[in-house]
């Protein structure tokens, strides 16, 4: 074994730069660019030198309606509503929809209504799916701003105040909140998620925001201008309705923003199986939405074609899809070319990425002072490996399923009656 390692070291030491690129071409093409944006954004972020405590004055964004749509949330809906009432900017209106819940959620809603804690409650007997539930709530909303929240998330005291602030700009249609992991210590999987959320949402979306590339307003916490929602006819059939809505708004010419100070905490899956299933669903929905429903974003001859939209579409194709597809090819190529040494090179590349990831994580921690990050740092190497290899295979599998078998048609996240008539 040590012989193999010393052979590898000797070989690598003898290579020229071009030789190294020839050896680590996968890393150079699919990994390094991923980090460039992050570096760039944080540099810009530091240059802007915003004060640590940003005092947000709520400008006249108008009346705020909070919409909560849930399924079997009898245990969490009261807590959720109470925490909304605790906000530094209390909502002007709260509308809750129980989407065909089979538990006691409708009764809890009636109680909340009679206690005056919520303004409207609707409970249906048959599940219609998240999109239809939110649409039902928004049918009655009277606010200028509609904020969608999830029952099982919790919100910082100033979350609502901060998330509506960017809507003072009349061109902004939607603002995505910053999602942090509430259970980072529930297990290794949850810890990796905490790191991933920090890097890809807290830092990644902050960076994307700088170059107008925020593509998805999280379903767990997003604020929308009601007129903008109306202009795109609200939510279409899910799943992945959050990405779909954001894409629709962008295509209609609205700006979509990310607000890092609007912090929301959510529980992530803490088993590998649950995480894998969740990501299967997300990736399948992303593919369906981007490349079935909104394929015209890639067509330069379409009247709806916009350069900014093409950028994130191509970014997704190259780094997510092709990256995932090429990885097995690269591994096979390494092993065929270098035999045993190939695996060592593979590990060496991953080791290099750990250094990258550590740096990026440090930047993310810097950009998100609210999150407690110190205890996570020792898990970054593990995360690096997990995310770089295992999660790539998960994605690859999900893409293949969706493209070949149209697997999202079987996702029970949306009721069957809806899936049967869904066009995409």
């Amino acid at each position, binding site marked *: 074994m040590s012989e193999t390692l010393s052979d590898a070291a000797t070989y690598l030491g003898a290579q020229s730069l071009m030789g190294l690129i020839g050896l680590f071409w996968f890393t150079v093409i699919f990994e390094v660019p991923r980090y460039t944006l992050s570096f760039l954004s944080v540099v810009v972020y530091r240059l802007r030198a915003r004060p640590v405590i940003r005092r947000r004055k709520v400008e006249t964004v108008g009346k705020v309606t909070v919409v909560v749509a849930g399924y079997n949330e009898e245990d969490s809906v009261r807590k959720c509503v109470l925490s909304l009432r605790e906000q530094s900017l209390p909502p002007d209106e709260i509308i809750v929809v*129980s989407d*065909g819940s089979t538990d006691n959620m*409708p009764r809890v*809603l*009636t*109680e909340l*209504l*009679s*206690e*005056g804690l919520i303004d*409207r*409650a*609707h*409970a*249906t*007997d*048959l*599940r*219609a*799916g998240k*999109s*239809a*539930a939110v*649409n*039902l709530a928004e*049918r*009655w909303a009277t606010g200028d701003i509609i904020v969608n929240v999830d029952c099982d998330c919790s919100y910082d005291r100033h979350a609502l105040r901060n998330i509506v602030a960017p809507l003072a700009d009349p061109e902004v249609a939607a603002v995505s909140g910053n999602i942090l992991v509430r259970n980072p210590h529930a297990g290794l999987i949850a810890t990796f998620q905490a790191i991933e959320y920090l890097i890809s949402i807290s830092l990644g979306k902050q960076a994307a925001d700088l170059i107008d590339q925020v593509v998805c307003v999280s379903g767990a916490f997003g604020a929308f201008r009601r007129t903008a929602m109306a202009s795109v*006819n*609200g*939510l*279409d*059939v*899910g799943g992945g*309705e959050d990405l779909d809505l954001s894409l629709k708004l962008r295509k209609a010419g609205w700006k979509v923003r990310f607000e890092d100070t609007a912090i929301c905490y959510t529980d992530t899956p803490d088993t590998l199986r649950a995480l894998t299933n969740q990501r299967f669903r997300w990736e399948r929905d992303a593919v369906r939405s981007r490349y079935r429903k909104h394929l015209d974003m890639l067509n330069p001859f379409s009247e709806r074609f916009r350069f900014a939209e093409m950028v994130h579409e191509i970014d997704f194709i190259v780094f997510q899809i092709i990256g995932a597809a090429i990885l097995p090819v690269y591994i096979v190529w390494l092993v065929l070319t270098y035999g045993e040494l190939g695996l060592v090179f593979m590990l060496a590349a991953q080791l290099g990425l750990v250094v990258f990831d550590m740096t990026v994580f440090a930047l993310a921690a810097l950009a998100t002072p609210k999150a407690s990050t110190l205890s996570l740092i020792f898990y970054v190497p593990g995360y690096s490996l997990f995310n770089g290899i295992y999660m790539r295979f998960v994605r690859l599998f999900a893409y293949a399923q969706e493209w070949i078998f149209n697997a999202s048609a079987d996702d029970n996240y949306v009721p069957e*009656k*809806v899936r*049967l*008539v*869904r*066009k995409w």
Partner: protein
Amino acid sequence: LGSVVVSTARKKSAGPAGTRRSDSKRSATTPRQDETPALLQAPGQKVLVAEDNKVTQDLLKLLLKQRGHEVHIVANGQDALKALEKDEFDVVLMDFHLPKMDGLKVATAFRAGDTASRPTRFIAITADMEGLLGHVDNCENFDSVLPKPFDLERVVEVVEGKPEEIYVPSAPAVTPVQLRSADAPSGALKTADNPIQNLSHEFLRWPDDFDGDRLSARFLQAMLDDAGRFDAILVRQPAAAHDLAAIWATKALHVLPVIDLTGALGRHADLDGSKLSVGETDTVATLINDFHNRRMRLHHDVLFSDDLGVKILGSAYAAGKAITPGYDPAQRGLVSYSLVLETDLVQREAAKLCDMGYLERRFFDRFHQCGACGSSRLHVREECSECRSPGLHEEAYLHHFSCAYQGPDSDFRHGDDLVCPKCRKELAHFGVDYDKPGSMMKCGACDHGNTDPLVGFVCLDCEAHASSDVPVTHDVYGYQLTDRGVGYLETGRAMLGRQHHALRLAHLPLEVIVAVNAELKAYHEDDAPFVVLDISYGNQRRIEHEHGVREFEQARDLFLENLNNTLRKEDLVIKGIAYDYAILKSVDPDEARDGLEYLRGEATNGVRHDLGVSVQVFTPEDFA
């Protein structure tokens, strides 16, 4: 004149013959007394006592001061008139035969020049009724007459303006049903032909014998002629509980059955006579008899108590049943009780009695109350959560699958067609294009839609609106006498702990009062302490029941004799009616308490029954 005749009697019948004869006159001279509502008399009267006898002066002063009145003493008629001209008094207790100027002259002179704002009541004290009536001045200048010897309780009552005590514990006139002929009252009532009032019981009739919330003067007069022996209260006109307040304001009426000829009293009455036919009048006799038998077992203290709570206990005992609530839409609280008393009074008093352990609660129902006025007469309705309108109608939700639009059915209605307001597609096929996942309540007034209507209340009394989420509720209980309560009713205050009972001077035998008075003087002048032992017998009822009254009296006499022998020569043992007393001179209270066990042990020596002796120790401070 001027001497105090010592008497322990409480009843009018103990008075001399001369007293009785004056009664008719006396009642006729009480118009001023009528101006004072019986129960509302505030304590703390300013009293002038004009009396030449020193012992009577002291006695009245002690008695009235203990009741919280301000007492001024003068010894002759001239001083009395001077005092009256200088100061204003509520009550003047005046000996008829006074030196220098007799009492009636004082009263007449004062009345002649009376310009004072405060009405002053004159009460004559005399043993010479003939002389008073034969006087040249109009004896109507006196509001009341108190005959000597004093009934101390009566003195207090007259001074405090309380009506006559009318209860006479004699056997009821329960005779076989026989109809009287010429006895019908002059004012013919709707209930005139009810057979009950023709029965040969002694009925106290409402409203005939009542005058407002008190007994009528005519009736009081009849009482004083000592003909009054009442078996029941007969309600001859539709009445509510509060119309019969006089029952609770007068002594010992609360233990009589209430027979309602009109049916309007409902469960307040003990018998609804309106539904009774001639053949069923035996029921009346049975009721009266049962009440009488139970009444006989009540302790004297309870029968003559002024306390409303005690009266309620006595009433429940006499009726032989629990104090039962029932629904009554005429009441703001929707409940009335099986007593001729207003609901809130029953509840207030019963709560106290429950705390004392005399009654126990039986949960009856929980009522919502109006937050504004406390009424339970609420109109319950389903209403809109937004505008509180009850004009709601149900409307189905409609879910269009292909575009995820979900809203009320009316959003989709275009004549006979269903058209999606979002994607303008026509919905053709239920279950394929769309379904109806449930229904909502829509308000006709404000178009607000919600999953469920709210429940709201409108108060029928004050029209205030209340929502069901801020429920003001009120629990209603029935009440039942506990063993402790029954024990108290049968044995009087012997059941009570010390904290329950302060010594009421007016209830003491005169002999005790005179002795205490003398001791108090010694205490104030020479600082010589003394104690009064109040002795009660907890097992009296049981012994009487098991061995007879004589047996108990013998045991009690032996006990008192033993006690007398154990005590020193200068100490006094005085036998009362229900309780006995001992006055120990020059004894420190603590010393007395330490010696109690020894005394009790010595005194019960050779007594055949366990009398259940309990002794309360009173000190000079208790008489302050």
